[in-house]
C-alpha cells in the first residue's frame, strides 16, 4: 500500500485554480521531488496534505486511512510533518523547547523520552550548542535546521520539506542534502519541494512537475528534466 495517496485533488482561490485534479502516490521509503515555477501550486499542495487547507474535492489517504478532512494536529499525530519555506520557529521558546513541544504533543512521548529523542535530533542537525537560546535569535541557516529538527521531533512517517535549501550557500546546501539523505536512509519517506534542482535530484528518486496547479510530468529525475515540455515551461523560466 502507498504511504500517501492523492486522488483528484482540487483547490480554487476565487478564479485561481491552485490545485487542478492532482493525482499521485508516494510509496513507503521513497523520496519524491516536486518542482514547478512560482505560483504553480506547490505550497498549496503541501498545505492540503498537512491540513492547513481543505480541498474543494479529491481525497488524501495516509497509509490507507482517509485524512482528507482530518484536522492538522490529527495529521501530525498520524505521521505527517512539514517544514516551511520561511522558517517559523516558536520564537519565544528555546530551541530545545521547540523540539519538546513537537515530541510531546506530536508523538505523545513522555517528557523523559522526548528530552532524550530531542537531544539526539539536535545533535544530528548540529544545533546542540544552541539548545537553550530563544529560537527568535537564530540565524537563517540555524532556523532552517530547527525547522527540520522540529519536524523530525514528531517522528514523522512522511516528511514534507518546502524549499528548505533556498537562501543557503553552496556548502550549507551540500550539508543539508547530506542530512536529508541520511534521514531518507533511516527510513523516513520524503516529499521535497525545491527550486535548486541539482540539490533535489541528488536526493530524490522520482520527480513531479507542477504548472498552474496541474501535474505536467512525472518520473525519473533525469528523464523528466530532459523532456521538452519541462525544459520549455520550467527551465525556460529558471534560466
Amino acid at each position, binding site marked *: 500500500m502507498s504511504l500517501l495517496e492523492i486522488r483528484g485533488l482540487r483547490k480554487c482561490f476565487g478564479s485561481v485554480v491552485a490545485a487542478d485534479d492532482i493525482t499521485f502516490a508516494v510509496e513507503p521509503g521513497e523520496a519524491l521531488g516536486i518542482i514547478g515555477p512560482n505560483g504553480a501550486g506547490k505550497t498549496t499542495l503541501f498545505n492540503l496534505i*498537512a*491540513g492547513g487547507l481543505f480541498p474543494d474535492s479529491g481525497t488524501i489517504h495516509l497509509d490507507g486511512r482517509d485524512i482528507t478532512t482530518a484536522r492538522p494536529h490529527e495529521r*501530525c499525530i498520524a505521521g505527517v510533518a512539514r517544514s516551511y519555506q520561511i522558517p517559523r520557529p516558536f520564537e519565544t521558546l528555546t530551541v530545545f*523547547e521547540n523540539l519538546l*513541544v*513537537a515530541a510531546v*504533543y506530536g508523538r*505523545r512521548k513522555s517528557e523523559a523520552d522526548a528530552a532524550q529523542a530531542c537531544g539526539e535530533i539536535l545533535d544530528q542537525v548540529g544545533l546542540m550548542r544552541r539548545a537553550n537560546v530563544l529560537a527568535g535569535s537564530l540565524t537563517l541557516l540555524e532556523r532552517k535546521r530547527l525547522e527540520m529538527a522540529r519536524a523530525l521531533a514528531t517522528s514523522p512517517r512522511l516528511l514534507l520539506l518546502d524549499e528548505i535549501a533556498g537562501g543557503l550557500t553552496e556548502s550549507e546546501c551540500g550539508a543539508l542534502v547530506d542530512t536529508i539523505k541520511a534521514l531518507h536512509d533511516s527510513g523516513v519517506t520524503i516529499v521535497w519541494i525545491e527550486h535548486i534542482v541539482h540539490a533535489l535530484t541528488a536526493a530524490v528518486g522520482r520527480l513531479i512537475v507542477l504548472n498552474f496547479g496541474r501535474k505536467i510530468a512525472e518520473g525519473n529525475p533525469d528523464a523528466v528534466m530532459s523532456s521538452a515540455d519541462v525544459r520549455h515551461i520550467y527551465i525556460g523560466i529558471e534560466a
Partner: protein
Amino acid sequence: MTLWANALMEGVLLGGLYALFAAGLSLIFGIMRLVNLAHGDLIILAAFVVLSVAAWLNIDPFAATLAALPIMFLAGFALQYCILNRTLGRGLLPPLLVTFGLSIIIENGLLELYSADSRRLHGGSIETSSIALGHSIGIGVVPLLTLASAIVVILALNFIFYRTALGRAFRATADDLEISQLMGIDHPRIFSIAMGLAFVVITIAALYLGMRANFDPTIGPERLLYAFEAVIIGGLGSFWGTLVGGIIIGVAQTVGAQIDPEWQILAGHVAFLAVLVFRPRGLFPLPVD
C-alpha cells in the same frame, strides 16, 4: 506617620486581591488573545458558588473554595470548549461581543437567583484576627493571606508556564497557532484547559473578595476594570507584572483614601493613567509582541 504606614501596608495587601483578579485575565489574554469582558462577573459568580457550597455543606469559606475549585475548573473548560472557542480566529469583535453578552447574562442570572442583597463570606474569628507590628500597626490575617495566595498563584502559574509540557503548549499556541497545530497540539483542548485554570484563579480571587467586603451581583464590571488596569500597568504577559500592577492600584487607593475618603477609587484610576502616560506598554512588557 503611622496612619500613612498603615495605609501603605493595607494598599500592598489589597494589591494581592487585585493581582488575583488580574492573573486570570492575563492568563487568558496571554494564551489566546481573548479579552474576557465577563471576567469580573465570573469572579462574582464564583463568590456566589463559594457562598452556596459553604451554606449547603455547612463549612467555612476556605473549605468551600477547595470544594468549588474542581467544579469551577470543569465549568471553565466547558465554557471555553462549547462557546468561546467558536468565537476565536474571526477577529477581535466576536469574543468581545460574546463575553459582553455573557457578562450581562451572569449578572442578571445572579440577580434572579440571589436577589440584589449584599452578601458576605463569613470566615469566623479569622476575619477579625490580626498580627500586631509594633504597638500601633496591625496586619489583618485575611489581607495577609490574600497577598500570600496571590504570590502562590503567580508562582504556580509561572511553574506551569515555564516548567511543564502543558505550559510549553500554552506558549507555543500563543506564539504561532497554525504551527502549533502542525506539531500535534489540539488547540481547542489546550485553550479549554487554560480557561479551566483561569476559573481556578477566579475562584481563589472570589474567596478573598467575599471575605474582605460585601458583594452583590452588580459589582462585577468594576472588578473587571481593576483587573484590566493591573494587567496593563504590569505589561501584558507577565504574571509578576500583574502583582506589581495590583499593588500600585491598591496603594494608590488606600493612600488616596487617607488623604480624602472620596478619593479612594479616583486615586487608583489616576495611578493607572499616570503609568499609561509614562510607560504606555506597562512596566514589564514582553520583548516581542
